[in-house]
């Protein structure tokens, strides 16, 4: 099995605050890893380190065979990694000045020099895949939150990533739109995409994850198959967290 992400003894600080503590974590190709934990536990920071949106201070991080040095000491590796790793954000971060289709075409055209016709065909195919082929020429602000997030997923997929990062992809959505986004992610997982997902959707985690990781105050305190973690947590902090989030 190929390991797409390898973290060893990784530490990250925000000023004096120690946000990630000695993180050891590997992600295999095709694996779906769901990261759970309270807000402020460092779970978002963890996946933002994978594509270098956050720098880390010590330890090692290898993504898709590229060594990403601490303090973004290796810009070439970082550039390569970002071509191979897609990311979906909590706030969608679509480009408001471009149509839906142009949002998706931008990176293939700029980064891979894809010809207009090829990028266009890719965008149409991906929009159909996420179920909004008929909205291609609208602007993001004309779409619902759920539709916008599906466009964001299509935009990331247009670069044909080897790994997809999801940073609380449904947290900014109205409840009735969460399902349509999770459906797209579920499909993606089924097709074998390697995924790291930070989420509060425990139902999704249990159903789709190959492995669930619980982070508490910057440390991985428990990980395992979803059924084991959810039904039989070993660590008392995990027990306390799960009893809080699963109670309602």
């Amino acid at each position, binding site marked *: 099995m190929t390991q797409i992400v390898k973290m060893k003894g990784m530490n990250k600080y925000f000023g004096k605050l120690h946000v990630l503590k000695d993180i050891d974590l590997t992600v295999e190709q095709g694996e779906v890893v769901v990261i759970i934990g309270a807000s402020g536990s460092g779970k978002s920071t963890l996946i933002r380190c994978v*594509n*270098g*949106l956050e720098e880390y201070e010590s330890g090692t991080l290898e993504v898709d065979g590229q060594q990403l040095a601490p303090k973004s000491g290796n810009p070439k590796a970082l*550039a390569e990694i*970002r*071509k191979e*790793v*897609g*990311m979906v*954000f909590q*706030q969608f*971060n*679509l*480009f*408001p*000045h471009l149509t839906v289709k142009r949002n998706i075409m*931008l*990176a293939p055209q*700029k*980064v891979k020099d894809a010809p207009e016709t090829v990028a266009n065909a890719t965008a149409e195919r991906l929009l159909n895949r996420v179920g909004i082929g008929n909205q291609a020429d609208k*602007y993001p*602000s004309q779409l619902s939150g759920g539709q916008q997030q599906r466009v964001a997923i299509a*935009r*990331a997929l247009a*670069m044909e990533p080897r790994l997809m*990062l999801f940073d609380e992809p449904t947290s900014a959505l109205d409840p009735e739109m969460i399902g349509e986004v999770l459906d797209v992610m579920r499909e993606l997982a089924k097709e074998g995409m390697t995924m790291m997902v930070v989420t509060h959707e425990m139902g999704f985690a249990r159903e789709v994850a190959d492995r669930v990781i619980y982070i508490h105050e910057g440390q991985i305190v428990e990980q395992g198959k979803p059924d084991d973690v959810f039904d039989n947590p070993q660590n008392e902090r995990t027990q306390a967290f799960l009893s809080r989030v699963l109670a309602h």
Partner: protein
Amino acid sequence: MEFQFQFDWQAAIDSIPFLIKGIPYTLLISFGGLLIGFALGIFFGLLSINKKWFLRWPATAYIEIFRGTPILVQVLFIFYGLPDLIGGPIDPLTAGIAAIALNSGAYISEVVRGGVQSIDKGQTEAGLSLGLSRTQTFWSVVWPQAFRRMIPPLGNQAIVSIKDTSLFSVIGVGELVRQGQIYIANTFTAFEVYFVVAILYLAITLSLSIILRFVERRGLASV
């Protein structure tokens, strides 16, 4: 003896052909200067938000100096002062364009800085995460959005600069006010002539306002 003033419409109308000769100069100085000022504004505005202090510092110095001194002093300095330094005269037109360029450039730098900083950093993160370089992310994601927000303050600066050119009558550029002064020297119809001068300025600035409203509406429609 009773004092009686009568607005002399005929004198006002007669002055128009002579005054209008000043308009090309007024427009040339303001728009020539603003064009260069826009380039300076982009350059220094972007430098002023650079992480490196040795790039940021000169930009801040430029902005503070040209924003913090009167444009009249600036143009006098360029026209009367600089020739001593470079050992040759500067023609009034060039001095006027240079003064508008340097002065508006300082204000436009601030407009550029504000516009760029107003764009959510999630936009940059999205660009970078897609594999775009920092430069690509800036010019294809951040700048187009920032520019749209910059249109109203840029229009404001254009109107200010057009009016500022009236001060350049002091260095003898044949712009609107200068034409008025020359005309009055022969006819002594100050009230009528300055009235027409004011109307002509208003015609220029109002036309610009209308164009800008139109551009703004079209630009914002797609966001």
